């Protein structure tokens, strides 16, 4: 029932010579939800459109659905369901007509089509909107209609291209939960494109992090979050604080602190390293316990925590969270220490092999 999708040696070069995607392999198991995550222009949408049949891979690439070669099949033959950021609902049709469109095209008999449309609308909790015109709907309602329309034809794969980006924050979270439940319930193979790390974490069985036309890492949300394999992924999933350090005799030296190598550090050779961490990688303390001291440049109160922007420690200002009850004003001095188990360490110089390390010692 569920469809396994394989992409082999797929690359994409556009007519003007731009390389959108370097050759890559990707397997999506039947019933799996895979999220393509990355900044705009990273090629994630191009992969989605390749699976859809709206773009074709360069010669040599091969796409299969359950082993059937669909590489040269156009979109209308592939039986894919698509959901777009702009909803792309037919403005000249009512909600019910939109949902029925694919069934009509496939020649499903009237009675069966009506029943299926009704079931779809009920599943998306929009049965009361059946006879509405599209321009009478809110953004959230439109995206529900678009989902109902896409799944009504029982596609082999559901492709979602930033479906929640146009919605406001609260609705985004609610609809995300609904989509998640829907995908589990249908057990359909799904590919979801987003630039939002939180969305990716919440929805994906697997996340494919993309960077400049290449796959930077494939893994479960847990892997991606806890064990980023390179600085780009670390940065993209929120570990955007960076400090320089040194590996010496299997120990990690950061400023005056010396630590047992965290998680991935054993594999590193002698030499300079970049240390990435989230806002919990440093915590505030008093002067005698401190590894670093810096100046508070900005303070934002986030309710359950106080977020400080601190300059004077690394090259770039660092983001550090602390107790929301602390009274810290911008301009004050702050002392903090390193939480070694919160660090991710890579060889210095943007993740090149440690052999290239020739950076200055701190």
């Amino acid at each position, binding site marked *: 029932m569920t469809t396994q999708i394989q992409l082999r040696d797929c690359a994409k070069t556009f007519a003007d010579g731009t390389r959108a995607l370097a050759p890559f392999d990707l397997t999506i198991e039947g019933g799996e939800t895979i999220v393509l995550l990355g900044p705009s222009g990273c090629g994630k949408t191009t992969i989605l459109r390749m699976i859809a049949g709206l773009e074709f891979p360069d010669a040599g690439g091969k796409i299969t659905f359950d082993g059937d070669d669909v590489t040269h099949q156009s979109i*209308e033959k592939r039986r894919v369901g698509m959901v777009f950021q702009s909803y792309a609902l037919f403005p000249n049709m009512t909600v019910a007509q939109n949902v029925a469109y694919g069934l009509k095209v496939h020649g499903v008999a009237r009675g069966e089509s009506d029943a299926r449309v009704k079931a779809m609308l009920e599943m998306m909790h929009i049965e009361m909107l059946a006879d509405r015109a599209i321009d009478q709907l809110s953004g959230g309602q439109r995206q529900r209609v678009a989902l109902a329309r896409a799944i009504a034809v029982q596609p082999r794969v559901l492709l979602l291209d930033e479906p929640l980006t146009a919605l406001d924050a609260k609705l985004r979270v609610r609809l995300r939960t609904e989509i998640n439940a829907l995908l589990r319930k249908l057990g359909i193979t799904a590919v979801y494109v987003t630039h939002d790390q939180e969305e990716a974490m919440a929805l994906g069985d697997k996340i494919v992090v993309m960077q400049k036309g290449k796959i930077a890492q494939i893994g479960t949300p847990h892997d991606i979050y806890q064990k980023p394999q390179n600085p780009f992924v670390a940065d993209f999933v929120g570990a955007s604080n960076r400090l320089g350090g040194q590996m010496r005799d299997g120990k990690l030296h950061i400023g005056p602190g010396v630590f047992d190598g965290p998680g991935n550090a054993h594999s590193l050779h002698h030499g300079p390293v970049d240390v990435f961490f989230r806002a919990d990688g440093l915590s505030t303390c008093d002067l005698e316990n401190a590894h670093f001291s810096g100046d508070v440049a900005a303070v934002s109160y986030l309710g359950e925590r106080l977020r400080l922007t601190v300059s004077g420690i690394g090259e770039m200002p660092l983001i550090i969270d602390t107790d929301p009850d602390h009274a810290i004003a911008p301009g004050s001095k702050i002392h903090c220490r390193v939480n070694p188990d919160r660090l991710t360490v890579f060889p210095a110089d943007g993740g090149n092999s440690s052999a290239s390390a020739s950076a200055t010692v701190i």
Partner: protein
Amino acid sequence: MSLLQNMKGGRSRPSFPSSIVARIFGQATPGAGSPAILFLLMVPGLVIVAAFFLIPMALVAMRVADGPDGLATYFVILTNERYFASLVQTLVMSAGVTLCALILCGICGLFLVRNRFFGRNMITALLTLPLSFPGTVVGFMVIMLAGRQGAIGAMTDAVFGDKLVFAYNISGLFIGYLYFSIPRVILAVMASAEKLDPQLEEAARSLGAPTWRVVKDVILPGLMPGLISSGAICFATAMGAFGTAFTLATDIDVLPMVIYTEFTRNANVAVAAALSIALGAMTWAVLAAVRFFVGNSADLSPRGGA
């Protein structure tokens, strides 16, 4: 329409300049400004309409009533064989021109919007050039093409030994009007086509729709407002245009020419007046029908005439 609604509903926050501007441009700001000032600003427009439309129309209508047959003159257009034939001919030709222009320009406009290629701007400029030509010039060009000394005549003479001449009758007029209508329709189609959301087509295709279905269910409905409004303009222009017909020949039986000959040659003022009103009424009726079917959104104001 929105102007009217605003005037009825508006009764708060008189912030003069911005609200006037907002009303003139039809923004749906919840009422502001005083209706009296707005009415004063409309007076010049109303005066012009009265002076150049209502008064002459009334005079024309009175001429009909004063004529030998009185109000029965209005029926002459239906009872007199020649007038009726001319009416049918005018209607058929205008409808034909409109249909051809819509088909030709629908395809060209869509192609020009969808494709970027060398010379695209040149082609667009060429296609929209006749916008600046008076009807007389268009008529003259038709003669140069299909007249007795025309290019087509010379060519057919050389190849078949027989001159093909069709400038001086309804075919010539048809070509002229078609040429004249292309820019208006193509600009409207291009404007509508720019607004088509390519993702709508992708969505339809993902649901299994083959190309013809995408055209029928997505592209045509998207272009429809532009096609209908520009088609209406095209039709109205073809119904009333005179310059091209007059340049080609004085005996082409289209209504504007008949009105002209009745008035100048036969001094049959009452019939000319009745025909004028009939022509105006029919054209208006078509535009009104179009407005009724597509709503007020479409811009139906005819720009320029031949």
